[in-house]
């Protein structure tokens, strides 16, 4: 999986859990919460969907890695590739 593919996976999850949000022009380097109406429960939803759909575990101490699309890709892409 490439970083761009990983970002697409995360955006698809966000589109599902935050259906009122327009995820078409999210800036990768900017924090997701600065661009989208996401709360703490939404981030737990992202963690849960990664677990359910992709078997990826994000420990609580690493939640900060999900702040932006870039940081998501940097953290998650190796995990996806490791589990593949």
């Amino acid at each position: 999986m490439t970083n761009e593919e990983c970002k697409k996976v995360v955006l698809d999850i966000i589109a599902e859990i935050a259906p009122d949000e327009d995820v078409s022009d999210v800036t990768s380097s900017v924090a997701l919460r600065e661009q989208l109406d996401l709360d703490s429960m939404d981030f737990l939803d992202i963690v849960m969907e990664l677990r359910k759909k992709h078997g990826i575990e994000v420990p609580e101490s690493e939640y900060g890695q999900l702040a932006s699309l870039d940081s998501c890709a940097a953290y998650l892409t190796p995990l996806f590739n490791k589990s593949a």
Partner: protein
Amino acid sequence: MQLSRIVITGVGLTSPNGNTLDEFRSNLLAGQAGVTRIDMRYMGQVLAGICDFDAFKYQKRKEVRVGTRAGSISIYCAREAVADSGVDFDGMDKNRVGIYVGTTEHGNVETENEVHNISQFDYDTKYWSHHHNPRTVSNNPAGEASLNLKVTGPAYTVGAACAAGNLGLVHAVQMLRLGEVDFAIAGGVSESVRSFGIFAGFKSQGALAEHEDPNKASRPFDTKRNGIVVSEGGCLYTLERLEDAQKRGAKIYGEIAGYHVNSDATDYVLPNPERQTECMRAALDRASMKASDIHIVNAHATATPMGDIQECDAIRTVFADCPETYINNTKGYIGHAMGAAGALELAGNLGAFDDLTVHPSINVDELDPKCALPNLVLNKPVVAKRVDAILNNSFGMLGINSALIVKRFSE
């Protein structure tokens, strides 16, 4: 002590046969029921009353996804009631607004869904949703409404089995009279049609209705009645002290004249006509009314074989020699809306203050002789000479009884 007079100034509702008071009332007068068949997990097809209100009218898609059906019903009804009241809600001090939502139960639906969810993952609880607790706390239906309407006053549920719709209103009256709030949004809601456990429980009890025609399945007082049709729905009212309502020139649907709540203390599920009789009489006493002052009695009758007979015994006792008192029932149209039942059924009769028309109990092809009350309105509406007061019965499991009296408003 002189108690404040409390009036109804707005109504918001959703029922299986209408999403506004006008639509609901029109269908009651037209004999139009709203029961259907749905697929129920583990059970196959069951009969149920389903509402088709637009949840997205007042909620974002995420709020609907994260919240509960009961929360959506509360929000829809509360918003509709507030709009109907004509109050300047934006300009109101939200600390002085109370939300009191009657519920039969809450949390069954969400818990069953989560158990089903983790069953897809070999019952590994790490897949159990973090939304479970906020969805299942018993104040959820009122809490979601407080979030949506930005109400910062007291907002909570009143658990009272199937008497809960009346109890929400009773509690609002008390809080307005105590001066705890200045404006109350109150009534009852139910999401029970999404819980297989509710249906399976009634079926095991021998109290779940079945009929080849869904709209004929709920048939209180008929000899062939065979149980309850479970429904979802909600009805919330806005209530105010009379002086506040008059000050802003509010439309007044009626005045809460009296109420009473008591308990059977005799059985988990079987009703007790003696306590029901006492409940209705105590409500009349509180209203300083005689039985003959009541022109419509909305019976709670759920179409169980014994329950209908026992309530009829109680009504017969209280309303003996009351030739101008009509008896009707709403469950033939919409089934049993559980925590919403009392509030919805009251709403169905409010229009009679204007048109003097008493909607009938429907689906009575052969009246059970033991339910043959004088002036029981069957299958066709009746135009009464007067409709000045309505007594609304709502009873529930564990023996909770409520009777609420609403009278035509006059200075």
